[in-house]
C-alpha cells in the first residue's frame, strides 16, 4: 500500500515497511504468539553462538541430551512459579525446600527405611518419593497458610523459608553427604539406565505429533462451527508439518546419542541410543498437567483473576485465600518432584542441594513472559525460559567461563530480556 500511495517515503524505506508488514501478516496468518517466536529466535542465537564458540561441541546430540536433563529441574519448578507470580505472590524458598525435601528423601532411603525393609527393597523408591511429595505439599501448605490466612506477605514468608529450609537440609544429616540412592530411585534422574531407549522415544514423538495434529484439527472444526476466523489452509498445513518436524527432528537427533561402549556391550553391543531421559519425560508430563490446570480448570481461572484484580475476585465470590493456599501446595509438590529428580541424578543429597535455584526458577518464569505485576504468564513460556537460562549456563561451562562470571552473564541476560520486552510492549501498535 505504502509503495504506491505515499511518494515522500524513499523507495528503500517503503520497501522495508512493506516487508515488515508482510512479516507481521505472516505471523498473523499463523496466529503464533510473537513473544514465543522471539524466545525461539533468542534460543537459536544462543545455541548457534555457543556452537561456534565451543568449536562445535554445543549442538552435538550428547550436549543437547545433557542440556535437556539439566533443564528439567528448573523447568518443573518454573511451571508452578508461573501460577505463584500470576497471583501476585513470589516464592523465594524453592531452592531451600528442594534441599530439605531432597535430603529427607535421601535420609529415608539410607538411614530410616533400611532398618524396616532392608536396602534395595522394591517399594523403597515409592515410599521415599511419596513421603517427599507429602512433605513438599505440607511445606507449601504452611507457606500458603501464613500468606493467605495470616496475611504475612509472600516475600517475607518465603524469605524466612529460604533460611529455615536450608538449615533443615543441613540439620537432617548434620551437613553430611547422603549417598548412594536406591537403585530404582536413581532412574528418576536419567543417566545411562534412566531413559526409555530409542524405540520408545520414537513412539513418544509419534504420540506427540498425533496430539498436535488432533489439537489443530479439533480447533479448526470448532472455530468453523462457531463461525470464528480460520487460519488460511496453507498456514494450517505448514504449522502441522513444522511442529511435527520439530518434535520428530528433536527425538531423532537426541537418539544419535549412544550409550557408552561398556554399557552397550552388556546389552549386546552396537550403537544403542539413550533415548529421552526420565527427567525430560517427567517435565513433559508436568508441563501438560500444569497447563491443563492453568487453562481448563476453575482453579487456574481463579489464579489469573486474582492476579488481575484481587478485589473483583473476592466480590465474585471466589474463596481467594484458599486458592492462594492451594497454589503454594502445588508449588511444594512440584519442588518435591524436582528434588527427587535432582537427588536421583546426583545419586546423592548434600546440604547445599538446590542452592540459588529460586533465582533461576523466577528468572525462567519472567523471561518466559510472566509479569511480576500479576495476571499474565504462560506455562510453556516458563519452560522455554528455563531452557534459555540453562543453555546459557551450560554453554558458558563448556566454554570454560568461571562460575562468578556465569552469574554476571545470567543476571545481565535476565534484566536485558525483561527490558526488551517492556520497551516492545510500550511501543504503540
Amino acid at each position, binding site marked *: 500500500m505504502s509503495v504506491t500511495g505515499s511518494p515522500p517515503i524513499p523507495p528503500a524505506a517503503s520497501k522495508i515497511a512493506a516487508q515488515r508488514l508482510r512479516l507481521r501478516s505472516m505471523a498473523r496468518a499463523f496466529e503464533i504468539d510473537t513473544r514465543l517466536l522471539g524466545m525461539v529466535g533468542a534460543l537459536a542465537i544462543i545455541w548457534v553462538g555457543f556452537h561456534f564458540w565451543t568449536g562445535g561441541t554445543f549442538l552435538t546430540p550428547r550436549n543437547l541430551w545433557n542440556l535437556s536433563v539439566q533443564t528439567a529441574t528448573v523447568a518443573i519448578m518454573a511451571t508452578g512459579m508461573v501460577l505463584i507470580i500470576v497471583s501476585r505472590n513470589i516464592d523465594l524458598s524453592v531452592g531451600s525446600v528442594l534441599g530439605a525435601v531432597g535430603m529427607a528423601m535421601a535420609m529415608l532411603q539410607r538411614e530410616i527405611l533400611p532398618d524396616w525393609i532392608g536396602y534395595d527393597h522394591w517399594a523403597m523408591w515409592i515410599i521415599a518419593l511419596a513421603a517427599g511429595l507429602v512433605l513438599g505439599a505440607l511445606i507449601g501448605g504452611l507457606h500458603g497458610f501464613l500468606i493467605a490466612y495470616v496475611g504475612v506477605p509472600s516475600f517475607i514468608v518465603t524469605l524466612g523459608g529460604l533460611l529455615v529450609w536450608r538449615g533443615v537440609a543441613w540439620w537432617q544429616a548434620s551437613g553430611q553427604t547422603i549417598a548412594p540412592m536406591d537403585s530404582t530411585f536413581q532412574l528418576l534422574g536419567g543417566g545411562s539406565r534412566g531413559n526409555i531407549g530409542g524405540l520408545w522415544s520414537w513412539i513418544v514423538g509419534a504420540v506427540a505429533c498425533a496430539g498436535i495434529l488432533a489439537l489443530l484439527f479439533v480447533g479448526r472444526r470448532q472455530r468453523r462451527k462457531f463461525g470464528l476466523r480460520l487460519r488460511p489452509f496453507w498456514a494450517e498445513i505448514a504449522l502441522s508439518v513444522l511442529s511435527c518436524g520439530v518434535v520428530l527432528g528433536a527425538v531423532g537427533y537426541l537418539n544419535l546419542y549412544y550409550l557408552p561402549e561398556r554399557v552397550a556391550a552388556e546389552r549386546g553391543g552396537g550403537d544403542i541410543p539413550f533415548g529421552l531421559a526420565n527427567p525430560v519425560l517427567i517435565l513433559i508430563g508436568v508441563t501438560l498437567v500444569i497447563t491443563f490446570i492453568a487453562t481448563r480448570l476453575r482453579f487456574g481461572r481463579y489464579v489469573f483473576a486474582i*492476579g*488481575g484484580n484481587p478485589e473483583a475476585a473476592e466480590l465474585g465470590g471466589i474463596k481467594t485465600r484458599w486458592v492462594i493456599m492451594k497454589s503454594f501446595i502445588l508449588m511444594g509438590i512440584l519442588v518435591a518432584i524436582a528434588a527427587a529428580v535432582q537427588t536421583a541424578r546426583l545419586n546423592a543429597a548434600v546440604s547445599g542441594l538446590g542452592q540459588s535455584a529460586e533465582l533461576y526458577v523466577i528468572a525462567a518464569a519472567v523471561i518466559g513472559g510472566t509479569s511480576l505485576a500479576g*495476571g499474565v504468564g504462560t506455562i510453556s513460556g516458563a519452560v522455554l525460559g528455563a531452557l534459555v537460562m540453562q543453555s546459557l549456563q551450560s554453554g558458558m561451562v563448556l566454554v570454560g567461563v568461571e562460575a562468578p562470571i556465569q552469574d554476571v552473564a545470567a543476571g545481565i541476560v535476565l534484566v536485558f530480556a525483561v527490558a526488551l520486552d517492556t520497551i516492545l510492549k510500550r511501543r504503540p501498535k
Partner: protein
Amino acid sequence: MTMTTQASRGVPLVDMRDIRVAFGGVHAVDGCSVDLYPGEVVGLVGGNGAGKTTLIKTLSGAHKADSGEIFINGEKATIETPRDAKKYAIETIYQTLALAENIDAPSNMFLGREVLSRWKTLDDRAMEQAARQVMGRLNPQFQNLLTPVRSLSGGQRQSVAIARAVHFNARILIMDEPTAALGPAETAQVHDLINQLKAEGIGIFLISHDIHGVFDLADRISVMLQGKMVGTVNRADVTKDEVLGMIIIGKLPGTATKTELAELH
C-alpha cells in the same frame, strides 16, 4: 403517607433495619434503615462520604455490618460474603465495576460461577454463547467478546458488569454509580435498561450523585448524611430543591426555611 403506600404492597423484598458499620472510631453507617419493594427503584443519595456505598455493601456481602438486621422477603437473612448475597439473588454492579482486566468478558461475567463440562473443566464455549446472548440484548454493537477486558471501552466494560448481574436473574439489583463513567448515549441506554428490569419486577437500589438521573428513575429517594439516614421520600411528593436540602443540610421537606433553601444555590 409513605407508610400507607408501603403497607398496600405487602412484604418488602429487602428490609434493612438499624444497620451500623464503624471503621475504627468513625461511624460510617450509624443506625440506618431502608427498604425496597419488587418492581421499585429506590434512589440512595447523599454527598461524598455520606455512607451510601458502605450501607449497601452490607447488603451485597462485601462488608459485614457491626449490628442491625436484614430481612429478605420478610425472612431474616445472614449475609457475610458476596456468595451469601448471591444465594438471595442479590446482584451488585460496583462503581469500580469489579472486573479482572486480564481476562475476557465471558470469564468475567461468570467469575466465581463458571459453567463446567461433564469433566469439571471450564466450558468456555457455553459461557461465550451465554455472554453473546445477554450482550445481544444489552449492547449489540459489542462483538469482540474474547479480548481481555483491559482493551475494552468504558461503555463496553459497563455492559460486562451489567450483563453479569442480568444473566444470573437478579431479584434485587444494586447499582453503584452505574452511569458515572458513561457518555450521554450510553447513559440513556442504562436508563432504558433500568426501566425494563423494573417492569420485570426486580427491585433496584440506585446509588448516585446525579440527582437528575435519580429523579428520572427512582420511585422513592432515601437520603443519607454523615452516616445517618435523613429520611425517605416519594419522588412524586418532593422537588429537587427539597431533596438537595436533605442532602446538604439534612432537613426534611417542609422543615427547611426559604432562606436555607435559597442558600443551596
